[in-house]
Every structure is written in C-alpha cells, then in structure tokens.
C-alpha cells in the first residue's frame, strides 16, 4: 500500500504547545559539542576511563584541571561569580558528550551544586564557593536523598546521621546535605564526618556513604530555602542533565552497534544486513531521536526557567531518556554477541552507566506518577 496515512486528528481542547527555544543547535552550540567530543575522545578514551575507574577515588584531578581550562565547570556559573554565564542548554550539550564518552568526571555533582548555590546560596556562599568551583579548585557534591531514608538531624548546630549514594561524595570538598532543619554545606574534612566509597555497579560514577557524628555546622553554612526546595532544585537540574547525558550514551552505543553490524560478518554477510539486527537498530533510532527531542526540550525549558512547563518536560525526559539509554545499551550487547559480554569490550561500561543512571533520581515510573499529578490525570 502506498497511501499516505491520515492526518493526525486534532483534539478540540488541545493544550497549547510551548514555544521555547528552537530544538536545534546553534552554530556556537555545535562548536562546543565538537570541541567536547574531540577532547573526550582524544584524552578520556575508554582506556583512560578504565584506568580511572580502577583507581581508588575514580577521579583524576588532571582531567578535572584540563576541563576547567576549557571552562566546563564555569559554564552554568554567572559571570559575576567567575563563571561563563551560559545557559543550561549549553551545559546539556556538554552532558550529551560526557554520556557519549562515559567520562568519569564529577560534572553532574558540580552542576547540581552550582544550581543549588546560585538559587539557594547566600551572597557570601556564592562569592566564596562559585569562583572556586568555576576554576576547578573546589568539588561540591549534593546528597540527593534516595529511597525513604531519614534525613540527618540538625539540632543546635550539630549534624548527625547518614546519607547514601552521594555521587562523587568521596572526592568532594563540600557536600550539600538536606537535614531535618534545612539544607547545609558541610566540609568533608570536618571532625565527625566519615566518608566511605560504595561498591557501585557503574564504576565510572563513584558514590559514597557519608556519616555525620555530631558534626558542628556554622550558621554561615546554612543554605536559603527549605531542604525540600534545595533537594528539588538539585534533582530537577540533575535529572535534566542526566537525561541529556543518557541520550549521548544511547547515541554512542547505537553508533557502536551500527558500526559492528556493518563490519561483522556471519553467514557470508554483514550481520546488519539481517533484518533481525537491522530492524532492531532502526527501532532504536526511532527511540533515540525521540529521547533526544525530550532531553533537548527539557534543557531549553530549564534554560528558560519556565516553571509550568518544567513540571511536564522534566518527568518526560527523566523517564523516557533513562529507559531508552538502558534499552539501547542492553541491545548493544546483543548486537555484539559474545564479545559484547566480555570485560575487555566497552559495551559493559555503557550498559552499567546507563542502568545505574536510570535509578539515580528514582525510577521512570516514579517520574510518570509525578507527571500524572501535574497533568491532573
């Protein structure tokens, strides 16, 4: 049949579509993307990723200094605080490349911390910390609560309790902690703070457990706003950037699969000539491009600070992009067959990062439930 499908019927009570920035990359954004891609490919290839992930900290200060030199930490920081004052759209472009490279760089924690400090930091905190973050001299992590663990207690300026799954928590100088009484900044070298790296599925993004035993917290280290607001800001920014990262990761494994399917021959032909593989990769292209649209849209909405649309765009991106990355990374192993299941092949680095990231800010169905409330469904 060669008939065109019928036009989409238009509902009479359709919601207006939002009109955010164009869903394309500007020339400047393309240049940023290309530079980031080249740097990560040349300097943080998977051999280097493997080297770093085998170290105790999972972090290499030399790379951190190198990307600081390119201004990556500075991007989302206002110019008045030593930053470059780009929008989240540009940061998202960067994250797509970071995902493509499964780079073990503490950029996610840095972006969340930046967002928290910009929105909830006092003038002093901003002036003190943001320039140092921007320069790559200070690592700040955010303890986004997971599951239903109780928040550490803050009573009379003393902090006690435990937080788990703190991304980059073992290498951070400061950590944002949501306590029973507001959010605070805690230096990890304070007396009473113990930091234990966790055994993680994805070695490219270390997590730590932080325990606080009667740790003194000065009033100057209190953040503005409620603990919930601080956590929410970190989670929203984190989820949007992670969605973009996952899209980059998904694109990388998809390209890896296409390349392998083009060159690997069985039965005298490239395996990509078989519909079993070809159609899987075609379906995944559909899924990938759809995920990218959602991730880009969410980044632009975040950049625009459109609060109403954020309530829709973020859950969409957070649920769908995580699903897509996890599926495509798993399918990539299948396309590669046995070799894709080996430690020596890179497929597992992507699969583990995609699978672990998928759970970092709750599950896709958690985000869907959140969207349902927003949509009043």
């Amino acid at each position, binding site marked *: 049949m*060669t008939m065109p499908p019928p036009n989409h019927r*238009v509902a009479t009570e*359709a919601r207006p579509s939002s009109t955010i920035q164009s869903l*394309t990359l500007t020339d400047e954004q393309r240049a940023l993307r290309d530079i980031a891609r080249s740097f990560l490919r040349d300097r943080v290839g998977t051999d280097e990723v493997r080297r770093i992930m085998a170290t105790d900290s999972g972090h290499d200060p030399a790379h951190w200094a190198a990307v600081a030199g390119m201004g990556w930490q500075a991007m989302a920081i206002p110019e008045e605080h030593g930053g470059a004052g780009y929008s989240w759209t540009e940061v998202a472009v960067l994250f797509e490349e970071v995902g493509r490279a499964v780079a073990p760089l503490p950029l996610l924690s840095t972006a969340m911390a930046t967002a928290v400090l910009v929105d909830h930091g006092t003038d002093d905190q901003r002036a003190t910390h943001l320039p140092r973050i921007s320069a790559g001299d200070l690592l700040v992590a955010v303890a986004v609560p997971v599951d239903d663990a109780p928040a550490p207690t803050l009573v009379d300026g003393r902090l006690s309790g435990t937080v788990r799954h703190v991304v980059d928590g073992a290498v951070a100088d400061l950590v944002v902690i949501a306590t029973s009484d507001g959010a605070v900044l805690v230096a990890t070298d304070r007396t009473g703070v113990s930091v234990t790296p966790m055994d993680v599925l994805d070695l490219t993004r270390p997590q730590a457990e932080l325990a606080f035993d009667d740790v003194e917290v000065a009033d100057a280290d209190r953040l503005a706003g409620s603990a919930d607001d601080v956590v929410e800001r970190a989670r929203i920014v984190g989820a949007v950037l992670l969605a973009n990262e996952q899209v980059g990761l998904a694109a990388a494994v998809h390209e890896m699969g296409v390349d392998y399917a083009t060159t690997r021959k069985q039965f005298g032909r490239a395996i990509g000539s078989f519909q079993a593989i070809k159609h899987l990769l075609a379906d995944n292209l559909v899924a990938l491009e759809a995920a990218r649209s*959602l991730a880009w849209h969410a980044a632009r909405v975040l950049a625009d600070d459109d609060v109403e649309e954020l309530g829709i765009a973020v859950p969409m991106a957070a649920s769908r992009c995580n699903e897509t990355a996890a599926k495509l990374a798993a399918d990539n192993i299948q396309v590669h067959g046995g070799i894709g299941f080996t430690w020596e092949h890179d497929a597992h680095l992507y699969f583990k990062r995609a699978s672990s990231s998928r759970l970092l800010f709750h599950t896709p169905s958690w985000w869907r439930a959140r969207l349902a409330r927003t949509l009043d469904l």
Partner: protein
Amino acid sequence: MSQATSNDVRTRLDFAIDRLLADHPPATTEPAAFWGAQFDAGLAWVHHPEARGGLGLSPRWLTHVRERLATAGADQSNVRFNIIGIGMGAATLVAHAPDAMQDRMLRPMFTMEEVWCQMFSEPGAGSDLADLATSAVREGDVWIVNGQKVWTTLAHISRWGMLVTRSDPDAVKHRGLTYFILDMQADGVEVRPLHQITAEAEFNEVYLDDVHVPDDMRLGEVGAGWSVAMTTLMNERVAIGGGVPPRGSGAIADAVAAWTNHGHDDPVLRDHLVELWIEAEALRLTSQRAADARTAGTPGPEGSTAKLHWAELNKDVTTFTMDLLGADGMLYPGGYDLHAPEMGVQPAQTPQKAFLRARANSIEGGTSQIMKNILGERVLGLPGEPRVDKDVPWREVPR
C-alpha cells in the same frame, strides 16, 4: 540561507498573503474562488515556479503560508481532501509533465474541480511496488493498459489518476515501468469500493480492461516509470506543509477522554496512559525538531522516524484506549455499515473505530517492516539483503 535573505523572503511572502486575503476575504469568498486566487498568487505551492501555483521559494515556507491562511480563517480543506493530487501529483507534474499539461491540470487540481488518485499498488505488488504487473502495450500513439490496481483512495470521484504500468516484462523489474496520467473517465476503467475492517470503503480497486491511454499522457521516458513514481512518493508529505500538531491532540486525546469520562483512578492504567502521553509528546517534539532543523538548514535523522513512530504509537494508543473503555470496548456504536465515505463528509469517529482503523497505520504508506528497512539502509547505512529479484528479467522473478 542568511537571516537577512530569509527576512526578505518572509516580507515578500507576507505581502502576497496580505494582498490575497484583502482581495479575497475568506469569510465572503467561495472556497473554490479563493483557491483559484491563491493559485494565481503563487501561494498554492510556494516552492513551485511562478505561474505553476508557486513563487519559486523553498518548500519550508509552505508551513508559514498554511499557518497564516489558517489564522485568517481560510478554508484549506482542498489540501486535506484532494491530498493525493495536491500532495503528490502536483510535484510529479512539475517535475515531469510538458508545460501544456501543467497549465491544464494544476489549477483545477488545487481548486478541487478535479480530484486526483494514485494507482501504484496492486494485489501482487504491495511492499514490493516495483513488481507491479499492470501491462501497457504500445500500439502507435496509444497504449493499451490491462490490470488491476488496489488501495486507490478517491478513485470513485477522481478525474485523473497517476498510473504506473509494466511496459517491458523482459527488463529487470525497476526498468520496465512506464508512468501515465490516466483519464478516469476512459472506457475500460472500472472502480469498485474496497471495504475495510471498519466496514467503510476509504479505498477502491480499479480494474483496467483494454484502456486506451494516449502516449502524450505519459510522464517521463518509456521504461523510466520508476523514477517518476519515486518523485510522486518522495513528495508524499512535503507539499502538505502541515505544522506540528498541538500537544495532546490525536489518538492520545481519545485516551485522555476515556480516562476522564470513565472516572478511572487505577495507578496501573494511569502509568500506562502517562507513558503513552509522553511517547506522543516525544513524537510531536521530534516532528517539531525536524521542522526546526529544516528551517535551520540542518536536517538530520530526526526527520525520518515520524511515520514508523506514529504508526506504532497510534496502534498502541488506540489499543490501550479500549482498556480504558472497559466493557464499552466491546461495542461498535452505530454498528457496521458497508459504505464509501462521501467527499467532504467526515465519517463519525469513535474510539472503537479508531482502534480498528489504526491497524492499517503500520501497513499503508509503507509497512513498518519496509520503513525499518529504509531507516536501516538509507539512514543508518546498513547493507541490504541479498536480492533474488535483481538482474533478472521481471518475467522470471518468482511470484
């Protein structure tokens, strides 16, 4: 294109549109008269040459024109109803027809005085279109055509049809085809309604029995019908220039309505509904991104996935809506009535009918299997399969 040039074009275009609207106010102008004036103003297909309904602009301005006319309240149902002609036939004429034929045919096509249909598919040639068997045998200045076409929307009211025939069964299959514009009123053309599972007959079968087609109705060279047909198919949606549908429109609107009307509150159904809602947005935003990328001159793979994505999603959404309907999903309100929809009359829509109708989404306009081949081979660059029908005379291909 630089921003400056683009602004110049927009200014010029808006001037033309303003004048059309001023001279022929949509509120007080008969649609056919308005469409004629629109054609004469070059605003029918702005990417066509002047005097052919266009202004020689890029096709990406089509959407701008349609949106402005829509805002002004102009009836654009010609594009929806005569979609085969306006959406595909016009581009084929401009690319391949002699001037006289273009002068004769483009304007009445756009004004809907003449409806068009397309006769490519056959019972034996669906996904494998190039295998078609309708024969054309030349006798001097006319061709004698025999065969059967199928899935021919609008054939029962069409004045003209785009017809691909096999003129040389001894050539390999893509090379023995010849393309004609068929006078649907010619002797030997018989149109029969083809009822689908909804009982409606959106489509027809067309039987061609010793139909005489003058050679001057041929488009392209003898044996070059495949490339002309590709022109037709490649323009399948370009010329419509529709914008991106609004959020929550289409099948997902039915699902949301069923959710609301049935007072649902089950979390499992809710999760599924939201999942589909997100998928619909993902499709919509991808269409928006594709449109933005075309505008920016940086088109990518996001422009190739819509048909497949839409077809599979529409099936999923309409299927899930049946769950939301619950026992009502066992009904077919109004019952089955074997009939052909009338021109301009939108048949009653129910979620149950949409559920049935959606089954064809992954078949019509290229099956999902064919779409995946296309994405895999043309977009991803994966190699094709070994072909047993290549380098063999069409006559000898197993069928």
